[in-house]
C-alpha cells in the first residue's frame, strides 16, 4: 500500500509526553543543533494550468462538482487509451529551460504501478528513467549570499483523484467517496538535489521556484488549492562532515511556513537523536500542523517497488531542437535576472528589487508606471510597495485586479511633483483611485482637493486661524516655536488638506514674528 494509509502516533505521543523538540529545547538543544547541519532536498509537484488534462480532453478545473470533469479516459474505463496533451509538454519544456535543465531529445512515459482507490487505472502514467529535463539549477539568494540549488530532474505525470472519507478520516469512516475531477490533471515534478542547508533556505528556494513558475505562467502555484505540493527529504550530519545522514521523508506540508517549520522541527529532532549517540531510522513522517510536530507514518526498510515499465499505449516523446528553440523564444525575463536589472537600471535597493520582482505582474506594473512617470523610480517603488501593497493586502486584491492603471499612478505622481496636490492628499486621492478606478484628475476635481495655489486666499485663511487662536499665537510670539505646528494643523483642517504645509508655515512665521 502507498504511504497514505495510516499514521502512527508513536513519536507524537513521545513528543507530547516529554520535553520534546517541539518546545524550545533550551540550552541543550541549542548546543547540539549548532554542532550539526541539515541536508535538505525538496520534491515539488505543480499542477500545470493547461486547459485540458494530460491524456484526455476534460477540463482541468478546481472546485467543480465531484466527477463533473471526467470521461472514459480519465476514469480508466476498460479499453480507453491516453493521448498526450502537447501543451503540457510545452509547459514542461518551458519550465525545464527556465530551471537551466537539459531538455531530453528523446523522452518517454512509464507506468508506476500501485493500488489506491483514487487512482482509476491503479497505475500512474509518469516518467521514470528518461524525464523531460535533467541537471538544472536555480540560484537563490540566502542570507545576503547566493546559493545554487541543483535540479536533479523535471518530469511530467498525471495527478490522482481525491478520496473523501465519510467522517473525515479513513479509519473512522464507514464509507469513502471518490472524486476523479483531478485525475489526469498534468503535474510537473521538480526534484532538487540535497543542496539546501537550512529550513530558511528551503523556504527561499520554494519562493524562487514559485516565482519562476508564475513568471512562466505554467501554474498558479496555490498551495492551499493543492496546485503546488511539496515533500521534503532531510538528513542531519555533523557540521563539516561529508558523510550523509539517514534521510527522512516529510509529507503533508501544506504551506511554505509548514515546510520551514517542519524542517526546523525535524532538524532539532534528528540532531538530538545524534547528540545522544543514537541513530536516526529511515522513515516517512507526517507534519501535524495542529500540534506542530512530525509524526511517524511508516518505516522504510526497503524502497517501494512500483514495477515501472514503459507505457505501451504512448509512443516515445521526441523533442526536436526546433521545438526547444521555439519554446525558448517564449521565455520571459526571469525573476533572478530581472532583480539584477532593477537594481542596475532603476537604482533600487536590493530589498525593493526583490519584492517587486517576486511576482511578474507586480514587476510589470512597476515598470509600466516608471515608464509613464519618467521621474524617480524609487518614488514609484515607494508607492507600489507602500500604499498599493497596503490596500491590496487590506482588500485581498490581486495585482491583476487592481483598478489603478500604472499610467494613473504615474499621473498622480506628476501631480505631486507640480504641486497640484500634496503628498498627504495624494494618499486620499490614491485610496479613491483604488476603490473606483477613476483617474487622479477626476478624483481631485470631484473632491475639490486641488492645492490652494492662490497665496492671497491662503493668507486670508492663515489670518482667520490666528484670530481664532490668539493664545496659541501669543505663545509662538513668546518664542514657543513648537506651538506653530498646532496652527499649521488648524489651517490644514480648514482647507481640508489643500494647503501646502511649507507655504502655511512661512505665512504664519511672517505674521507672528512681525506681530
Amino acid at each position, binding site marked *: 500500500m502507498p504511504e497514505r494509509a495510516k499514521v502512527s502516533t508513536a513519536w507524537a505521543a513521545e513528543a507530547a509526553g516529554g520535553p520534546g523538540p517541539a518546545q524550545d529545547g533550551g540550552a541543550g538543544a541549542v548546543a547540539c543543533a549548532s554542532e550539526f547541519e541539515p541536508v535538505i532536498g525538496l520534491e515539488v509537484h505543480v499542477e500545470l494550468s493547461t486547459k485540458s488534462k494530460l491524456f484526455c480532453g476534460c477540463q482541468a478545473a478546481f472546485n467543480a462538482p465531484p466527477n463533473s470533469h471526467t470521461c*472514459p479516459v480519465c476514469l480508466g474505463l*476498460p*479499453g480507453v*487509451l491516453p*493521448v498526450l496533451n502537447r501543451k503540457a509538454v510545452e509547459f514542461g519544456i518551458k519550465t525545464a529551460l527556465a530551471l537551466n535543465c537539459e531538455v531530453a531529445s528523446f523522452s518517454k512515459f512509464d507506468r508506476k*504501478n500501485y*493500488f489506491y482507490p483514487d487512482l482509476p487505472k491503479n497505475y500512474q502514467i509518469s516518467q521514470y528513467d528518461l524525464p523531460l529535463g535533467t541537471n538544472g539549477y536555480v540560484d537563490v539568494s540566502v542570507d545576503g549570499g547566493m546559493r545554487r540549488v541543483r535540479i536533479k530532474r523535471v518530469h511530467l505525470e498525471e495527478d490522482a483523484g481525491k478520496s473523501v472519507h465519510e467522517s473525515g478520516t479513513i479509519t473512522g469512516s464507514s464509507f469513502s467517496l471518490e472524486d476523479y475531477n483531478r485525475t489526469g490533471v498534468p503535474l510537473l515534478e521538480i526534484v532538487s538535489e540535497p543542496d539546501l542547508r537550512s529550513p530558511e533556505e528551503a523556504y527561499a528556494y520554494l519562493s524562487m521556484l514559485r516565482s519562476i513558475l508564475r513568471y512562466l505562467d505554467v501554474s498558479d502555484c496555490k498551495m492551499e488549492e493543492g496546485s503546488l505540493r511539496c515533500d521534503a527529504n532531510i538528513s542531519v550530519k555533523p557540521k563539516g562532515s561529508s558523510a550523509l545522514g539517514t534521510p527522512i521523508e516529510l509529507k503533508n506540508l501544506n504551506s511554505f511556513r509548514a515546510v520551514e517549520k517542519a524542517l526546523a522541527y525535524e532538524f532539532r529532532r534528528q540532531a538530538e537523536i545524534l547528540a545522544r549517540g543514537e541513530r536516526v531510522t529511515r522513515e516517512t513522517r507526517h507534519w501535524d500542523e495542529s500540534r506542530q510536530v512530525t509524526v511517524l507514518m511508516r518505516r522504510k526498510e526497503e524502497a517501494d517497488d512500483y514495477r515501472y515499465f514503459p507505457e*505501451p499505449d*504512448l509512443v516515445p516523446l521526441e523533442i526536436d531542437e526546433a521545438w526547444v528553440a521555439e519554446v525558448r523564444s517564449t521565455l520571459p525575463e526571469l525573476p533572478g535576472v530581472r532583480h539584477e536589472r532593477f537594481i542596475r537600471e532603476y537604482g533600487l535597493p536590493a530589498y525593493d528589487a526583490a519584492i517587486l520582482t517576486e511576482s511578474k505582474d507586480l514587476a510589470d506594473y512597476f515598470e509600466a508606471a516608471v515608464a509613464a512617470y519618467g521621474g524617480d523610480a524609487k518614488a514609484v517603488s515607494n508607492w507600489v510597495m507602500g500604499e498599493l501593497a497596503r490596500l491590496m493586502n487590506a482588500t485581498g486584491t490581486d495585482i491583476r485586479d487592481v483598478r489603478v492603471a500604472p499610467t494613473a499612478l504615474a499621473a498622480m505622481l506628476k501631480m505631486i511633483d507640480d504641486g497640484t496636490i500634496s503628498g498627504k492628499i495624494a494618499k486620499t486621492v490614491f485610496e479613491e483611485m483604488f476603490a473606483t478606478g477613476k483617474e487622479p484628475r477626476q478624483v481631485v476635481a470631484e473632491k475639490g482637493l486641488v492645492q490652494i495655489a492662490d497665496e492671497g486666499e491662503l493668507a486670508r485663511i492663515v489670518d482667520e486661524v490666528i484670530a481664532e487662536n490668539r493664545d496659541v499665537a501669543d505663545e509662538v510670539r513668546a518664542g514657543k516655536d513648537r506651538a506653530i505646528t498646532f496652527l499649521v494643523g488648524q489651517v490644514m483642517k480648514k482647507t481640508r488638506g489643500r494647503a501646502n504645509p511649507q507655504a502655511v508655515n512661512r505665512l504664519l512665521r511672517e505674521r507672528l514674528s512681525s506681530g
Partner: protein
Amino acid sequence: MRLYELTAHELKEKIERREVGVEQAVRALLDRIAEVDEAVRAYVTVAREQALAKARAADERLARGEPARPLEGVPVAIKDNMCTRGVETTCSSKILKGFVPPYDATVVELLERAGAIIVGKTNMDEFAMGSSTENSGFFPTRNPWDLGRVPGGSSGGSAAAVASDEAVAALGSDTGGSVRQPAALCGVVGLKPTYGLVSRYGLVAFASSLDQIGPITKDVRDGALVLGVIAGHDPRDSTSVPRKRCDYLKGLVPDVRGMRIGVPKEYFGEGMAPGVRAAVGAALKTLQDMGAILADVSLPHSEYALATYYIVAPAEASSNLARYDGVRYGYRAPGCPDSVTMMTQTRSEGFGAEVKRRIMLGTYTLSAGYYEAYYLKALKVRTLITRDFDRAFEKCDCLVSPTSPTVAFRFGEKMDDPLAMYLSDIYTVTANLAGIPAVSIPCGFGEDGMPVGLQILGKHYDEATVLRVAYAFEQATDFHKAKPVLRDAGAGGAAMGGAAARGAAASGDGSGEAGGGPTRKAAGGEADA
C-alpha cells in the same frame, strides 16, 4: 442457399440489388443463432433488439435511395473485449459482469458507419488469455466441426460463430495468435493486421504492445473488405499509425507467379501433428504449382519467441488488469470491512485461474531485481526476432507456415497443463512480437478430419501481399467452401453426425471416437447455387 450462409460480399451485393432486405438478412441470421447456438455457444450476448432496430433503419436508408455502404446489412459478431455502447462488454470475465460501456470502440463505430449490423458479443478466453476458450468465465464454446472439441482461442466465439454461420463476419483480437489460431481450428479466415494499422481504442487491453484487432471471415475477400473498413489512423490511439487508406480489395489478384515465398525451417520442426504437416505440405505444393517460388529461410531466434511472449504479455497484462478492483464498475465483493479487503476480495473472486496466473507472472517479472533479467531482456529478444523477419523479407515477398501445430483438441485435454496450452501459439506469437501482418486460411484437413490453417506472414503494412497470396490460394482450392453440419443442435449435446472424411489433405489418424468426428457439406454445387 440460405441467407446466413452467404459471405459478406455476397450478402452486401444482394442487399445492394434489393434482392434481400437488411431486416430479412438479420432475422435469418438471428434465427440461425437461435437454432444452433445452444450447441455451439459462440455468443455471450445476442443484441437482438438493437440489431433489428438498426436493420430497419438501414432498410429505410436504402428505401430513401441512399447508396449501399461497403458492409450494408452485413450481420457481424464482435468479440466481447471490444466496447459496445449500451451492450454489456465482459471479456468473458465475472469481474466485468454487468459492465455496459458508455462508448463504442473505434472499430465498432467504423463497422456501423459502413453499414454493418452488430448482432452480438462472442465468447472468449477470459481477458483473451488462452487458446481454447475454455478459460471463459462463463462457459466454453464448442468447435462447430466437432462439438467435443475446442474452437481454439482466445477469439473462439468469433471463429465458431463464423464457422457455424451464426455470423457473416466477426472481429477478434490477436495478441499471440488469438485470431489466427481459432480461425485455423474452425476452418475460417483470420487476419491479424500490422500493429498500429487498426485502432485499439475501445479494445479492452490484454497486452497493449501486442494486441491487434482483426477480422474473422468466411473467405479472403471478406477479410480484405472488413479490413478496409476498420483500418486507418485514429487520433484516440497514439499507437495507431497515420497512413493513407488502402483498398485491399483491389489487390486481390489470383496470381502468385514469380512471387518468392519463404518457408522458415524453424516452423516445420518437431511437435507438429502429422495431419497438419501433410496438409501444409500439400498447400506449399499447390502454391508452387501455381508458379510461386518457394525458398528456405531461417528465423533463428524463433526458439525464444514463446518465452519472450510469456514475459512481455503477462507483464503488460498485470498492469492493464489492475483497474478491475470493484471501486468503479463491474463486480465488487460484498461485505468487505475496508477498501483494501474489498479490492483484494474482488480480484480474488472475479478473476479466473489463468488470468491470476498471468497477473502473478507479470507482477513477478516487473519486480525490482527481476526487471532487467526478464522484461528488459525480453524486449531485446523481441528486437532480434523482428530483425530475423526483416532479413527474411529481404529475399521473400512473404512467409508461410502452419498456423497451429495441431488441429482442434478435445475439451480438458490441455487445461491441466498450461505449458502444453501455451505451445498452441508457437507459430503465431512471432507475428505479434514483430508487429507484422499474418493471415490464417483453411488449407485442408488433418487428424479426425478437422480443419488445418495455413499461415501467411508479410512485411509491416504489406497486408496487400499477404491477402493476395491467400486469395490466390483460396481461388485455386475450395477448402474455404467446406462447412460443418450442425444437426439437432437444440437437442442437448448430441449434435453431430458421423465422420465424413473428404480427402482434401491428409485423412485423420483414426483416433477419434466413433461418431465424434465432423460432418461437412460437400464443398461443390450448393455453395455456388
